[in-house]
């Protein structure tokens, strides 16, 4: 079988990476290995059907959420509440825990499992207060030298009247700015839906990962379809057009790696999914923990290189 266009692009990226001074030479070989492994896994350009399947799996009602991973990944978990301003937003979960004996701070959107929890957590759509809580906890981590892990799982930031009045746009910008300033290692992983500004708010990290069937996009398929075709029913067509799947995100250089899921999706075996995630987080942190803080700010250079233009 001749190499697909997709594979060719990944190979090209691999080639570029080999010539790029990224976080020091010693770290680069790990990066290359990882990409090579990704390449070995994904030889096929995902079809429109594959993409739609990921959209469905990413939103599957039994898919593990942030706290499902927290309880499987971290020891001594202690949840931190409140933005120290006016609210504690249940759509954003923050806390401290031990990963392999190392204290980390974790932030992540949290969807609800039952109807009541879904309502109280607003389906994982944070208010500005949620982002301000995350900022506070990431800065606390920075003070004490704890790495930051963020788990991204949101349809988007909450589009409510009070959310706008309390500065949703500014809060999302401030959260990104806070992450751009951190001098501790940061790893983000999109575990379900990576919905637009609400997602990137906590994903400006040294390493950005996606679960195999997670999606990451500038707009929801339904939203895109509604705007472009005036018909939310065209969501599948929209998804095929803007390609929110992990393989395409990797190809475009938006993420650094794909975390495999158990056959059939993470919800079929949450324990196994958590083990695979743990391994990926551990690998990423191992690469990063010895990098000096000032050098970690080179994450800015990575994000500043994203885009395609002539």
């Amino acid at each position, binding site marked *: 079988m001749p190499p697909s266009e997709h594979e060719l692009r990944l190979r090209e990226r691999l080639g570029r990476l080999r010539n790029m001074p990224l976080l020091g030479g010693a770290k680069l070989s790990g990066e290359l290995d990882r990409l090579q492994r990704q390449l070995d896994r994904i030889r096929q350009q995902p079809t429109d059907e594959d993409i739609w399947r990921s959209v469905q799996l990413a939103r599957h009602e039994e898919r593990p959420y942030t706290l499902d991973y927290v309880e499987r990944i971290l020891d001594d978990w202690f949840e931190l509440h409140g933005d120290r301003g006016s609210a504690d937003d249940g759509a954003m979960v923050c806390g401290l825990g031990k990963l392999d004996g190392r204290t980390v701070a974790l932030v992540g959107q949290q969807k609800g499992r039952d*109807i009541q929890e*879904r309502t109280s957590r607003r*389906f994982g759509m944070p208010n500005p207060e949620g982002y301000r809580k995350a900022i506070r906890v990431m800065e606390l981590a920075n003070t004490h030298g704890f790495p930051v892990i963020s788990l991204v799982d949101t*349809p*988007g*930031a909450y*589009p*409510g*009247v009070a*959310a*706008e*009045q309390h*500065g*949703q*746009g*500014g809060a*999302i*910008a*401030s959260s*990104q*700015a806070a992450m*751009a*300033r951190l001098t501790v290692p940061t790893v983000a992983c999109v575990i379900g839906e990576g*919905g*637009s*500004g*609400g*997602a*990137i708010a906590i*994903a*400006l990290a040294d390493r950005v990962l996606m679960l195999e069937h997670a999606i*990451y*996009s*500038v*707009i*929801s398929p*339904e*939203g*895109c379809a*509604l*705007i*472009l*075709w005036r018909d*939310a029913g065209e969501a599948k067509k929209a998804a095929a*057009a*803007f*390609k*929110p799947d992990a393989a*395409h*995100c990797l190809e*475009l250089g*938006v993420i650094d790696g794909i975390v495999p899921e158990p056959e059939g999706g993470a919800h079929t075996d949450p324990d196994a999914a958590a083990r695979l995630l743990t391994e990926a987080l551990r690998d990423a942190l191992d690469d990063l923990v010895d990098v000096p803080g000032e050098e970690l700010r080179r994450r*800015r250079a990575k*994000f*500043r290189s*994203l*885009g*395609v*233009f*002539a």
Partner: protein
Amino acid sequence: MAKIDVSIETDEQPVPPPKHPNTCPVCHSHYRDDELEQSLWVCAHCGHHFTMRARARIDSLVDPGSFVEESADLHSEDPLGFFDLRPYVERLAEAEMSTGLADAMVTGQAAIEGRGCELAVMDFSFMGGSMGSVVGEKFSRACDSAAEHGMPLVTVTGSGGARMQEGILALMQLPKTVCAVEDLRDAGQAMISVMAHPTTGGVLASFATLGDVLLAEPGALMSFAGPRVVESITREKLPDGFGRAEQNLRFGHVDAIVPRPELRTTLSRLLRLFDAPE
């Protein structure tokens, strides 16, 4: 299962054109082209601020002949081969034709009342001022240019949000521009952000709100989600003036609302305060 779909980018489209583009949508006064130009596209009768094109904005702010454009040759590509009702490349070509701009932002160096600054001015007429790779790159370079020349950066925004035709790369322009602002700040330079109607979605949620000083034009819509999205998803009744500059001032999100005729002197004062080079 409760179903909820969220379009996070606002679906703010260019306001449907009134009977004539020179007719005030608020008080229906009609103006000749030269009258509007003379009044900086502000309705002499009711004060409504018409959308202002990027080059006209620059002319209205800077010392004559002082503007030196940068990165004018950057053009968008079509990384996803995006096709909705029409190909993205066709939409781009059309926008370029109708606006005379390569994309939705014009950048360059200039002087305002004798003080040097870097300018990054958006043009809502180019695909609704949407932010794709070119806007992100031009903004990013403008930050570096400001840092290099030791000048503050002045931005004027008008945007419906991220350009969805560039998919996830459009979203990445948020962290990209945020990182550029942080680098600018580390270089010790200030950023003054002027938000014109509308500054929404991904532009509001990235560089526009990160200025040291945030100014807004009267009546400008400044919301992350568009009013229609908020209304349709939350079923909340929108309060009067929802998301407008005046509400943003009241809720603490901007430093001042500056009517367009006062913008030049206001920026000049701020450039003095931030010790912009003479």
